[in-house]
Structures are given as C-alpha cells and as structure tokens.
C-alpha cells in the first residue's frame, strides 16, 4: 500500500483557508414570511464560463442570472486605476430572465401525477450569443434556447393597416382584416400572376424599424417517454452532441438533435423486481473523455463505465467502493452509505461523492478506496434513529468542487454548508450559514491533528462536529436544509439555495 504517499508528499504546502464573504442574495425572505412550496429552489448550475447561473424550482420555473462585473469591466478600468488600493472583484450577478420549463402533468396510463419540479439543469454549448440549456423534471427533459430577439415594428406596408392608424396596432394581420375577401396568402398558384419584365414599381417591401430587444426562451426539443422511473441526473458529453439521463434503474444516451429515440446504455433492473438491492442515484460524464461516465448507487459504490467497450454497458470498467469497516454494521449502514451526488473535478482525475455522513474524494486511478474522506454529519450519528423516523436520513445533499480542484463543498442542515480544503496537507474546514452573515454561526473547531485510521490510504480530516448543538447552543433544524449548491467554475464563489433564496458568497 503506497496510497498514503499522495497525502504526505505535498509540494509547496496547502493553500491558505479562504475567508468567505457574503456577496448577494436573491429572493431573500423577510422575517416571518412564509415560503411558498413552488418557490423552493431545486437545482443550481453555473455555465462553463461562469458568466451565467441558472436555478430551477419546484414550480417548474427556470431562472437565469447573468454576471455583471465582467461586462462593464473595461469601462471602469480607468476609475479603478485611479484608486490606490486594489479592488477585490468578485462575481456579481443580476436577474436575467425566467421561464416556465415544466408544467404539472398527469400520466393517464399509469395514473401518476408528474410534478413540475426541476430536478436538474445542465448548460449546453453557447452559439451565436444564444444560451442553451437542458432542464428535467421526473420524466421529461427539455432543451431550451434563450435568445435576444428584436422587437419588430413594421412601419411601411403596401396596404393600409385597416383602422389601425392612431392606436398603434400596426402589425395586425393585413390578411384577415382586408376588405377584399378570398385573397388569402398562398391561395392561388404562381402562374396566376403575370408580371411585366421590369417588375411592378408600385409594390414595396415592408420597412422594419425599432431595434429594441427582449429575451425569449423557446423550448427546442422535448425528450420524453424514455424513463419508467424518476430521472435523477442529466449530463452533457464533452463531444457537444450527446447527453445522458439517468433514473433509478437505467441510463439512456441521447443525441441533442434527436428527441424521438435514445439508447439504453445501462440497465440494472433485475429480471425479478424482488431481487432489486441497488439503484442508480446519480450519473455524470467525464469532463473530457467522451467515452467515460460514472454513476453512483444506493449502496455507496461508484461505477466507471467505458462506452467503447460495448453497446450495453452493464459491466463496469471500474468499481469504486470503500471497504466496510468491520463490526460497524447497523440498521442504518446501508441507508447512510447511499450516494446522493457525484461530480467530476474539472481535470477529470478526481471524483467527489456525497453520502449522508461524508464527502469522499476519489482518484479514478485508485479503486481501493477514497483518497480522502470529509466528515460532514458525524455529529448526527447518535441521532440516526430520529432522522430515520422523520425521513431526513433520505435527504439528498449535493456536492461541488472548486474550479481549481483545491476545495470541495456540500450542504447540511440549519442552512449551513461546509467547505473543505482537499489539497494535500490542507486542514481547511469551514462551516458557513446561508445568510447575510455567513460566519455568524461558524464553529471554531480547534485544529486537531489528522486522525489516521487503520488503513493509511485514507485520511479522515478534521471537521467532525463535536455535538448536535452548534457553537451558539442552537439545536440543528432539520427542516431548513441546504441541499443544492454550486461552485463558480473559475473563481472562489459559491451559490447555494436556502429554501426559496439564492445566496452567493465569495472569497
């Protein structure tokens, strides 16, 4: 076993812990305001450049935000140069637009209600300044194009717009209101007309004026009827032409341009449903290798599959599992082992997984166990019974990695989220609250030396909470959970969702 070397041989010492500051909040609740169920945020995603941010909510809406601080950068440069001290620029976003992505539906064949809740959003390749994204609820994936459109006003026409002069209704149909009947466009064949060789001078083309623009979101494609179970993930391939969608038992491969067929590439459904022991919980394509994808399971394992190997990838190329510690088995072992989210790091070498108690970082070249494990909820271990009773134990927390791969973050209860340094030797472990004062309740955990477990390949980092009571003596609130968060792709900035509010922090 030489895996321990990787941790020990840190090159130039770990980066300094970050000092997190509040940046922005959208949809902040006033005191005592009740949260509407439909407003609760259910998905957050930055695009590849980090210039845009999308959130989805339980009401089936997608809200887009755009970055403001880079756009006017040039204009402000001179002002900045006059100032003596450097200004710490951090990403700032403003509301861009929103659209209704999904509506509640009813499946009459199965007598099932299909919620409109957005489960996942993924950005696609930008083209010609138009934004493209995929959004999905439990059953249906949609491909959206958001684009600025010119508002057209037609000022000159051949025919008087009837009765419209003066009330501004210029562009009304000239056809339906025209005094002479039966002249519908396209009604008579071409050869009815005979024209003089020079053309008809009295005809003229409409003149379009006014160049105002507004944002229009159009649904370009609907990928439906391919999932019997609830879709938990969608993920774009690096080839820019395909994506996958995963439900509890199957993963399907789609071409973005073809919505009426998909290929099933993973199927874990047993012949007899009573033999079912494991379901797919999350799936993601490798960021650069178009043939690789990883999916996680309810048993705590991650499988890496190679699409090149065969058409149906039921046999994995690699299996990542943490060997169970002997003697620690309990009723909850399997439940808390279930992985709620996996993410590839940008370089594609590391994968981050989140289970109920921990974050785990895996090296795709090492399938014997995680490179590091970060305790997120260790303090809840004595309370697992209560958490099981109130179903909290099944909460699906997401996780994210920073663009440089040096830090990881995940959510917790009481609207808290935690940031860990994952560079070798780093002891960084910060707890932040999704509020305007993120460090208000931060627990100052004394730096303890890292405890080595029996296996030297795994180093458990500090950061384990001491009790279920935080520093201020408040007990944790299981109803306010921070499930969704995303790390800006290039900067140290985190967007996280506390119920209906979107909080943003920077460091």
């Amino acid at each position, binding site marked *: 076993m030489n895996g321990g070397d990787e941790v020990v041989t840190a090159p130039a010492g770990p980066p300094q812990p970050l000092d997190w500051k509040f940046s922005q909040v959208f949809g902040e609740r006033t005191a005592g305001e009740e949260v509407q169920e439909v407003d609760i945020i259910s998905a957050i995603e930055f695009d590849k450049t980090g210039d845009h941010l999308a959130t989805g909510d339980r009401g089936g809406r997608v809200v887009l935000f755009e970055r403001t601080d880079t756009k006017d950068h040039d204009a402000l440069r001179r002002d900045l140069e006059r100032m003596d001290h450097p200004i710490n620029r951090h990403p700032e976003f403003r509301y861009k637009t929103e659209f209704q992505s999904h509506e509640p539906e009813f499946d009459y064949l199965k007598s099932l209600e299909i919620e409109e809740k957005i489960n996942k959003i993924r950005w696609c*390749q930008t083209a010609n300044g138009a934004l493209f994204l995929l959004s999905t609820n439990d059953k249906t994936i949609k491909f959206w194009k958001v684009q600025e459109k010119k508002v057209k006003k037609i000022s000159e026409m*051949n025919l008087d717009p009837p009765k419209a002069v003066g009330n501004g209704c210029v562009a009304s149909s000239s056809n339906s209101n025209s005094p002479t009947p039966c002249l519908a466009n396209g009604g008579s064949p071409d050869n009815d007309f005979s024209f003089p060789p020079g053309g008809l001078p009295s005809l003229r083309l409409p003149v379009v004026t006014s160049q105002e623009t507004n944002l229009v979101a159009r649904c370009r494609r609907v990928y439906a009827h391919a999932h019997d179970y609830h879709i938990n993930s969608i993920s774009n391939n690096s080839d820019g032409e395909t994506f996958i969608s995963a439900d509890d038992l199957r993963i399907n491969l789609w071409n973005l341009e073809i919505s009426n067929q998909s290929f099933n590439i993973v199927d874990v459904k047993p012949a007899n449903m009573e033999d079912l022991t494991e379901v797919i919980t999350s799936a993601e394509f490798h960021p650069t290798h178009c043939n690789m994808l990883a999916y996680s399971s309810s048993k705590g394992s991650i499988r890496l599959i190679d699409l090149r190997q065969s058409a149906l990838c039921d046999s994995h190329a690699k299996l990542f599992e943490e060997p169970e510690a002997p003697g620690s088995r309990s009723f909850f072992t399997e439940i808390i082992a279930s992985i709620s989210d996996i993410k590839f790091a940008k370089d594609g070498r590391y994968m981050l997984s989140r289970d109920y108690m921990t974050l785990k970082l895996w090296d795709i070249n090492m399938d014997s166990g995680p490179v590091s494990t970060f305790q997120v909820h260790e303090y809840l271990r004595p309370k697992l019974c209560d958490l099981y009773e109130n179903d909290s134990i099944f909460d699906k927390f997401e996780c994210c990695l920073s663009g440089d791969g040096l830090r990881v973050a995940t959510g917790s209860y009481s609207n808290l989220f935690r940031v860990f340094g994952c560079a070798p030797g780093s002891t960084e472990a910060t707890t932040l609250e999704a509020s305007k004062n993120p460090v208000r309740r931060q627990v100052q955990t004394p730096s303890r030396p890292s405890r080595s477990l029996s296996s030297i390949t795994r180093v458990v980092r500090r950061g384990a909470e001491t009790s279920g009571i935080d520093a201020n003596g408040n007990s944790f609130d299981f109803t306010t959970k921070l499930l969704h968060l995303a790390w800006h792709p290039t900067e140290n900035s985190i967007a996280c969702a506390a119920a209906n509010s979107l909080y943003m922090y920077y460091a």
Partner: protein
Amino acid sequence: MSMIEEPLYPIAVLIDELKNEDIQLRLNSIRRLSTIARALGEERTRKELIPFLSENNDDDDEVLLAMAEELGVFIPYVGGVEYANVLLPPLETLCTVEETCVRDKAVESLCRIGAQMREQDLVEYFIPLVKRLAAGEWFTARVSSCGLFHIAYPSAPEALKTELRAIYSQLCQDDMPMVRRSAATNLGKFAATVEAPHLKVDIMSMFDDLTHDDQDSVRLLAVEGCAALGKLLEPQDCVAHFLPVIVNFSQDKSWRVRYMVANQLYELCEAVGPEPTRSELVPAYVRLLRDNEAEVRIAAAGKVTKFCRILNPELAIQHILPCVKELSTDSSQHVRSALASVIMGMAPVLGKDATIEQLLPIFLSLLKDEFPDVRLNIISKLDQVNQVIGIDLLSQSLLPAIVELAEDRHWRVRLAIIEYIPLLASQLGVGFFDDKLGALCMQWLKDKVYSIRDAAANNVKRLAEEFGPDWAMQHIVPQVLDMINNPHYLYRMTILHAISLLAPVMGSDITCSKLLPVVINASKDRVPNIKFNVAKVLQSLIPIVDQSVVEKTIRPCLVELSEDPDVDVRFFATQALESCNQVMMS
C-alpha cells in the same frame, strides 16, 4: 400610404406578410418568394428584396429553413448567373445560425449556387465567403464552412489553393468537436477536388489528425469517409498509407469504430487490390466477424455477401465460410437475423458444390432458428434459395418452418408469413401447395386478430389469381363458403369480405351460381353488422354480374334491407340501391 390597384392586391398581401406576426403566414410568403421576386423585377429583387432578407434573419427556424431552401434556386430571379453573387450574403448569415437543419440547408443552397457561378465570381465572392465562415467567431460558422470547400477549391488560383488547404487543416484541429466532425464528414468531398500530390501529403495528414482525435464521434466520421478517400488514392499509396490505418481501426478499442469499419471494409478491398486484400483485409474482416460486441458482428454479418463477391471463391470458402458457420449459431438473434438476410447471396459466389455442402446446412439451421425474424429473413429470400438448392430439398425443410411461423404467437410474424404465401405458391407449384399449405390459408381466416383475417382474405384472392378460377373452385371456394355458418359474426364478416375480393377474380358465372346465393342468404342474418356488410358486398358485385341478375336477385334483397329497423343497414342498402339505379341509367 400607397394606393394598390386591384390586380396587384394578392401580391401586395404576400409581400406585407413577409413580416406578419403569424408564423404560418410568414412561411407562406417565404415559400412564394419567387412570385414576389417576379413581381418586383430582377433589379429590385437584387437591390431591395435580397438585402431585405439579409437584414431580417432573426426569424423562427422554420422560416429560415424555408428561406435557405428558396434562395438555392433563386438565380433566375436575380437576373441569371452573372448576378448569382448577390445571393451569397443572406445565405452566409444563414450558415451561422444555431439550428443545424437551417445551416445544412444554407450550405446545400450555397453549393448549388456556387456550382453555377462563373469562375471569376467564385474567386471574387465565394472563396472570401468560405474564408470568412472558416474564421467565424462561433463554431456554427466554422461547421458550415467545411461543406463549401469542394465548391471553392477547384477555381482558386494556386496560392489561394494552398491557403484553402491550410485552412481546412486548421478546421480539422478546431477546438470544438462539432467543427472537427464537420471537417471529417466533408473531407472526402474536399479530397476529391484536391490534386494528387497534395492528396498524398496534405489530405492524408488531415485524415491522420482526425483518426487520432480524442473524440470518438470525430474518429467515427473519419472512418466513415475512409472508403471514399481510399478510392481517390493510387492503389500503392492506398496500401502504404491507408491500409495500416484501417487495419488499426478494425482493432480499435471503441466498438463503434469497429462497427464503422465493418460497414465500410468491402469497399476498401476494391481500392487496395487483391493481394493486400488477401493478406490484410480478410484477416481484419474475420476478426470483425468474431468481434466481442454483437453490434459489430451484426454489421459484419450484414456485409458478408458483398465481401465474398469481391474475393475469389477459395478465399471465401477458406476464411469467411467458417465464420459464417459460427455466426449462424451466434448468441445474438440480431446477428443471426442479419446473416439470414444476406446469406443466400453467397451461393453464386461459392458455386453449386460448396453451396450444397457447406452453405445448405447453415441455411437449414437458420430456417429452424428459434427466433421468427431469422426464419422470416430466410423465407423472404426464397427466390434465391430456390435457384440454389432446388425445390425438393427446399420443400422438405421449408414446410416445417412455414407451419411453425404460420402459428407463431406474435401476430406480426403470422402477418409477415401470409404476405409470402402467394410467392411461395407460385414458386412451389400447385401440387405442393394443395397438400401442405391450403389448410393453413383457411385457418388464418379464423384467426383471432383482425389484421390476420384481413390479410388472409386478401391471400385467398391472390391465390385464386395465381392458380386460376378452376383451381379455386375446387380448393378455395367451398371451404370459404363453408365458414359463413360460423357462430361468431366477426368470422362471418371476414367471409363476406373474402367473397367480395374473390368475385372479380372468379368471374360472373361462378359469382352468380356460388357466391351470390351465400351473400343473399346472409342478408337474413340476425346481426346488423352482417346485414350492412351484405349491402356493401352486393354493391361491389353489381358491376360483375349480369344486369338481369341485379334486377332479379340483388335489388329485391337490397330493397328489403333498406327497410331494416337498423339505421346503418338502411343507409348502406340505400347507397347500394343508388348504384343499382346508376347502372340501369347507363
């Protein structure tokens, strides 16, 4: 506001609706762009309409697609080939939109226009356009540019040609996989226009880049074009530069790449000549036939005949046939099915002896395959089978397979076999048919599934056509008419349908003496559905039988039905009576 005189009104509407809010109306206007152009005249089309279209290009994709298509055939409306260049700007913009189908159409139209343009115009307008697109900021423009090089290249002067090749090479290494895919797709077309010396150097190095791409999708397309490229090279160059690449691909890690090779390989044999085929391509093909991935074997199996045709018989028997034998018992039904659909084509290649000795056992085992698709594929190539093994051998082995398929529990399989029955009958002859298949045909008339009964009725008619009325009188008509007494009305209805189909084939005499009485009898049925179907059948019999029979037998029956308590029966009876009257009049 201008005054528009009456005759111009429709055309004015058409023009105004280019900018209507309703997309359908805009689409209609765009579809009739040529009418608008003719009304405006060539000059104003050039100076006003085309710039107008160029400016208004943020329309919906449906409208843009239509515009891209219309502009492709617009040369006559702008004043002929010498003005063709005015059409380029709007199409250039359309080449950059996000929607793939619009871009593809715009490229297609540009190619169409470019192919007609004068050489100096190509140099002055078309080539700069290609260069602009290839340097486009967004990948969409660069994707489109790849499809235009083969038009631009031939008329370019030498220096420009070098530049174009360099640009294409750049596109083959673009950051965006979409652009590289487009470059790979269009490489064959471009290569066909490039001079031989450059082909060997420049194009081959581009091909090399593409085949080493880290995106599978790019490599796949490079492989897809390799056959076209291989044919452009001299055989010795092809062997030296191309063959190693292909052989490598046939062992690629990605099954999709191997799948593509399996589909293309036979075409390359022609390009490289017989000796390298024997030494390199046959082993490669054999590997593909034995690939781990079923999809690859399916593709390889489907090409087995085409491949064998290129080889000499010894090679085919020695190398390919053993694989074919293995494939006939492949674990994947789809592989066997693909093999079954082409295997008979191997017979002429192998010659009679090898066919009887080696191919026939394979063929027979496929005919007994547990999956109906495989058996169906064999039976559908029956004509080829017959030529090779002769009718006796065929009938012995065929019959059990047919009987089994005829009773398959999937109705689509039964349907498929019914469609082949007339063909079988014509090939096997009357004698064989009488003994074995006649009973099956009757049985289908009583099938539980409507589509089968319907097809069975049709089948009875086609058999009567094949073997003639005399035979039908003996072997079909009595049995069919017998079934009119079936207790279930749906089956009785099938018989009525069969009668209406048989009548024209059997002719007036038999219809009057045998069929008509049965129909008349059925008019007393207790089920209204039967009765109105009787009315319909009677109507169809009117033109077949004699006028006197209509008056004496059909009309009284219809009159009676037209007073039926059931409204539908009355309706169809009345309709049939009207037909009677019409015949009377004429």
